[in-house]
C-alpha cells in the first residue's frame, strides 16, 4: 500500500512559475508600452472628432478597455481561486491574490474615466448610469474580497474563504447587473449611452483594440510582478528561494 499522500502539490509549480514569469516580464512591459503608445496616439490624434460629443468622447478609448479588464480580471481571479481551493494548488491561490488589487485598480480607472465622459454630457461628476453603477458594485465586490483575505491570518483559510466569496460574487454578477439595469430603466435614469456613441469608424476600432491589448499586456506584467513577490514570501523556507537569496547576496 502506498505511503501517506501529501495533500498539497509540492512540486515545481512555484519555482517554475517564478523563472518563467521572470523571463517573460521584459517582453510584457515592452509590449504594453508599445501598444499603449500607438493606441493612445491613434485614439487621441488620428481618430476623427465626433459630431455629437466633440473631443470629450475620446476618453472611451481608456474607459472601455479598463471596464473590460475589470470584469475579466474578476472572473480570472474567481477561477484561479476556485482551482486553488478544489485542487489544493498553492500556485493558483497565489495568482488569485495577485489579481485582486489590479482588478480593483482597473475598476477605479473605469469609474474615473466614466465620470469624465459623463461630465460634459450631463454636467455632473457622477451619473447613475446602469453600467457605471454596476461597475461601482464590482468595486465593492473587490473591496470585500481584499478585506476578507487580508483579515484572515491563516494563509490557507484566507485563500479558501476568498475563493468561496469570489465564486459567490461571480455567480451574482449577472443578477446584480440585471437588477441594476431594471432599476435604471424604472427610474428613467441617465445613461451614458454607447449606442449614442459615435459610429465606430475603423480608426476608432483600431485604437480601442490596441489599447485593449496594451491593458492585457500591462495586466499580465503587473500581476506577474505581484505574484512573484507573493511566491517569494510564502515559499521563503524552500531550498530554491534560499538559493536565490544567497546568489543575490553574493552578487551585491
Amino acid at each position, binding site marked *: 500500500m502506498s*505511503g*501517506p*499522500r*501529501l495533500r498539497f502539490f509540492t512540486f515545481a509549480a512555484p519555482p517554475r512559475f517564478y523563472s518563467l514569469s521572470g523571463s517573460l516580464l521584459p517582453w510584457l512591459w515592452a509590449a504594453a508600452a508599445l501598444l499603449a503608445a500607438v493606441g493612445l496616439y491613434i485614439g487621441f490624434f488620428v481618430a476623427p472628432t465626433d459630431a455629437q460629443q466633440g473631443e470629450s468622447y475620446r476618453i472611451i478609448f481608456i474607459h472601455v478597455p479598463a471596464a473590460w479588464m475589470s470584469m475579466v480580471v474578476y472572473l480570472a481571479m474567481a477561477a484561479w481561486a476556485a482551482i486553488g481551493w478544489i485542487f489544493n494548488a498553492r500556485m493558483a491561490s497565489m495568482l488569485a491574490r495577485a489579481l485582486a488589487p489590479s482588478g480593483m485598480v482597473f475598476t477605479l480607472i473605469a469609474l474615473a474615466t466614466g465620470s469624465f465622459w459623463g461630465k460634459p454630457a450631463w454636467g455632473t461628476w457622477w451619473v447613475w448610469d446602469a453600467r457605471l453603477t454596476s461597475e461601482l458594485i464590482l468595486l465593492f465586490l473587490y473591496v470585500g474580497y481584499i478585506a476578507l483575505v487580508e483579515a484572515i491570518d491563516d*494563509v490557507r483559510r484566507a485563500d479558501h474563504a476568498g475563493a468561496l466569496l469570489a465564486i459567490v460574487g461571480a455567480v451574482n454578477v449577472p443578477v446584480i447587473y440585471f437588477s441594476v439595469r431594471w432599476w435604471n430603466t424604472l427610474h428613467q435614469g441617465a445613461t451614458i449611452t454607447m449606442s449614442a456613441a459615435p459610429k465606430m469608424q475603423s480608426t476608432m476600432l483600431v485604437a480601442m483594440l490596441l489599447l485593449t491589448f496594451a491593458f492585457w499586456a500591462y495586466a499580465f506584467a503587473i500581476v506577474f510582478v505581484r505574484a512573484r513577490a507573493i511566491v517569494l514570501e510564502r515559499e521563503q523556507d524552500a531550498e530554491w528561494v534560499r538559493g536565490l537569496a544567497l546568489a543575490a547576496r553574493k552578487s551585491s
Partner: protein
Amino acid sequence: MTNHSIRTVLSAVPISPSIDSTFHVSEPHLAARGLACRRGTRLLFENVDLALRPGELVWLRGRNGRGKTSLLRLVAGIATPEAGEVLLDGTPIAANGERSRRVVYLGHQHALKDDLTSAEALEFLLRIHGRRSDRASVDTALEHWDMLGQRNTWVRRLSQGQRRRVALARLVGEHEASLWLLDEPFDALDADGVQRLNTLLLQHLQRGGAVLLTGHQATLAPTLRARELDLDDCAAA
C-alpha cells in the same frame, strides 16, 4: 534534536484479562498513519502514527504548544491533516457514517451554553449526537457526577469544575465499545471528580472501549496502565 523517523506505537497488552475474546486484539478500531499538522506556515509535527485497540488507553503528552489538541482534532476528523490519514474501521474518518455513533469527542471547552440550565445543555448535546436524551437519562448522567442538585442552575452560575462535570456527564450513558477522545478531561476537577473519571475510564476499557486523552498532570490511576505518546519527540524541524 528532532526525530523524523516513523514512530510506530507498538501494540499493547489489553488492560483487563477479562476482555471479551470476540474482539480481535490485533485489529485497531482507529488507525492513524503519517499524520502531519500545520500551524501557520510551519509544521507542528510529522510522521505520527497511532493505533487505538479495544481496551487501550493512550495518554498524549507534550509541552504546551506541541499540538496535543491539534492531534486530537485530526484523529476526531474535525480538522484535515497536512499529510497522512485517519481510518476508523478501515474507512477515512471524515467520510465514515459511523463516526457519530462510534466516537465521542470532548473538547477542551465544554460546549455548554451559558444561558441554558445544566440539564438543558446536556440534553442538547446528547440529542444532537443521537444518544438517549429523555429526562431520566439526563438525570442519571447528572446524578453520576453528583450534579443532579444543579440540574436547573444556569450554566454561567456553575464553577469551572462543575461545568467540567456536566460536560463529562455525556460519558455516563455510553455503553457501546466506543472511542473516547478527551482533551484535558481532568482539568479543573477536584479529587472526587478525578476519582469518578478514573472509574468511568476503567469501566469503559473493561467493556472493550478505547480512550485517547491529553493532560499535563499525572492524574490517571495506575490501574489504567496508560500507554504514552509524547509529542515532544515528534516535533518537526
